[in-house]
């Protein structure tokens, strides 16, 4: 580059050939070509599909969302019936997907942390058991594992008539797990609002306490006061709301169990299957994170006479977080995406309901576009949250 400028004919030598030899220019040209090809392919597919749909007399657009869905959904977190609209059906599916993914993320983190730590145990049996667990569940396709759990639950647990009563009112049957729930009461709404207000208050309290500690060095027991404030105010709201005590307890009526809250076998199968499968990967993330912390940190903790559990919690795990968060994010994203396999065991997740919608309306493109953008949105939210968390941890560790 500098040579051509120094040469006498420098200006004229910037011919077409020299532009084509410029790495930057070439990179841009390649990118334009690729984008063009993608657009062309997309145009070809979409125009073909539109043509086909037109031939089948299916109108395009999202108008179908307001039409009556006229199919039942076995479990829903909101009011839903066959008379509800397609959009409501899809929301039910979205909520079911979010429910199983969120609980799966929490469960796989707990299981993964336990097995990841166990894999490094000094106890031979514990170490080997953890290794077997990890290798076993990591190496079997997750779909087969879902089938396995789904087949296990109806066969391993008794008919409602002989339900296992784990605790008074908590029944385990081949139709799922039944638990008592408080009967709806306006006190619970008040409690919810108060809880949110309390959390906001505690966030401000924490800010204030940090500022004061930075200024005067005086610490403030935020955790203690915060917990007291939270439970205290929620309890007062409960009393103020009239302290409802009525519980809807599940009981056997006829051949089935009525009342209470039912956790379906489908949900259990998906939750356990996804959590266990992903926990095997999370365990490996946790293990490598712990091993990334220099051995000298353990030695220093030992020399201070600290308990191993304290050293792990306060010194090793916080440092391994730095290494572990990015791969952990990947596992959470995988779990969320894998939850679409729920359709295989009949759990009414977003994909399953989109499928039904597609079959009934024929609006494949619209239905697919909806659930693809929802999955994209869920993944982006997870990524954003984990990025934020990573930054926060990095700020703490440095």
């Amino acid at each position, binding site marked *: 580059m500098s040579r051509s400028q120094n040469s006498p004919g420098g200006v004229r030598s910037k011919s077409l050939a020299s532009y084509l030899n410029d790495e930057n220019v070439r990179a841009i040209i390649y990118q334009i070509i690729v984008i063009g090809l993608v657009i062309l392919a997309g145009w070809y597919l979409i125009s073909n599909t539109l043509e086909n749909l037109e031939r089948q007399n299916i109108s395009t657009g999202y108008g179908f969302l307001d039409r009556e869905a006229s199919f039942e959904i076995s479990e829903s977190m909101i009011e839903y019936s066959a008379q509800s609209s397609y959009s409501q059906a899809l929301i039910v599916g979205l909520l079911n997907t979010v429910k199983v993914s969120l609980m799966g993320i929490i469960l796989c983190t707990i299981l993964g942390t336990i097995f990841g730590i166990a894999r490094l145990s000094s106890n031979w049996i514990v170490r080997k058991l953890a290794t077997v667990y990890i290798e076993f569940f990591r190496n079997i396709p997750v779909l087969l594992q879902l089938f396995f759990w789904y087949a296990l639950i109806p066969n391993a647990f008794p008919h409602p008539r002989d339900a296992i009563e784990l605790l008074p009112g908590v029944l385990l049957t081949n139709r799922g797990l039944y638990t008592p729930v408080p009967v709806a009461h306006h006190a619970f709404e008040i409690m919810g609002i108060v809880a949110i207000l309390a959390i906001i208050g505690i966030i401000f309290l924490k800010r204030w306490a940090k500022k004061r500690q930075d200024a005067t060095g005086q610490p403030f027991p935020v955790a203690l006061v915060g917990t007291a404030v939270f439970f205290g105010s929620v309890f007062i709201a409960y009393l103020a709301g009239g302290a409802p005590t009525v519980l809807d307890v599940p009981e056997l009526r006829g051949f089935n169990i009525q009342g209470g809250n039912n956790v379906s076998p489908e949900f259990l199968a998906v939750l356990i299957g996804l959590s266990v499968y992903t926990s095997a990967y999370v365990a490996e993330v946790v293990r490598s994170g712990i091993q990334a912390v220099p051995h000298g940190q353990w*030695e220093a903790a*030992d*020399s201070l*006479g*600290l308990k191993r559990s*304290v050293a792990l919690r306060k010194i090793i795990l916080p440092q391994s977080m730095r290494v572990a968060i990015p791969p952990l994010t990947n596992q959470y994203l995988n779990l969320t995406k894998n939850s679409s396999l729920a359709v295989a065991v009949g759990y009414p997740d977003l994909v399953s309901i989109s499928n039904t919608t597609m079959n009934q309306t024929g609006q494949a493109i619209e239905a697919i576009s909806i659930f693809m953008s929802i999955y994209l949105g869920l993944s982006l939210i997870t990524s954003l949250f984990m990025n934020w968390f990573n930054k926060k941890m990095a700020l703490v560790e*440095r």
Partner: protein
Amino acid sequence: MIPAENNLPRKDDFIAVHDLGKSFGAVHALRGISFSVPRGETMAIIGPSAAGKSVLMKCLVGLYAPDTGRICLDGEDVSTTGNETRKKWAEKTGMLFQHNALFDSLQVWENICFSLIESRKLSRKVARDHAVDLLGLVGLDPDSAGLRPSDLSGGMQKRVGIARAIATDPEILLLDNPTAGLDPVLSNHIENMIAAIAQKRGTTVITITNDMKIARHRYQNLAMLHDGTLQWTGPTTEIENAGNAYLTQMLSGSSQGPITMRTGKRQDQLFA
């Protein structure tokens, strides 16, 4: 001079090491080490790189269980790790690691007083005040209390490590290179402080150092390791008439003598 071989532990010795051996696979880090330190006295350990100095110190604090031999502290056998006696003595010992090993997950003051908070249940307020005092003792600003170890310079980290080692007012102080990487003024200050701790509190101090001047003039006793064996031990006053070739070479830093570097090519070939 007392030859190392005849230096059997006596009853009144506070720290007594007898025929200590420690291997890592094929590497014999320590072989037949015997020496002793009376209560309240100071000892410097010197020796070339990889002589086993740090391993010896980790055996003394109970991180490594010796393969052979015995370690007695105040007459109590602490040769096996993981028991109550060993734990009791670990808590009575303060140690500075060669590479500091500060906890990056904690602030500077928490680093210094972590065992006081966790094991002795000191309140965080009191612990923080104590940490600030200790920071002053090692010549650090109280403002550094709230920083992370990774925000400190190398010499500052070293001093935080020293503050952590003395935080519990230990009976035994083990310091692995406390003045390495410090400027002469600061290293003088730290050595004064170590001497004061030994004198005023009766702490028994063992220090690994590569500074021969410090080893000779600041410590009452000296032990020299070479290749996992003890070459010489005795009061520093007897160094002159020790007549030990290893010790003489180590003190003078000469390239002529029994201590050799295992270099593949000769230097004149490398930099031809």
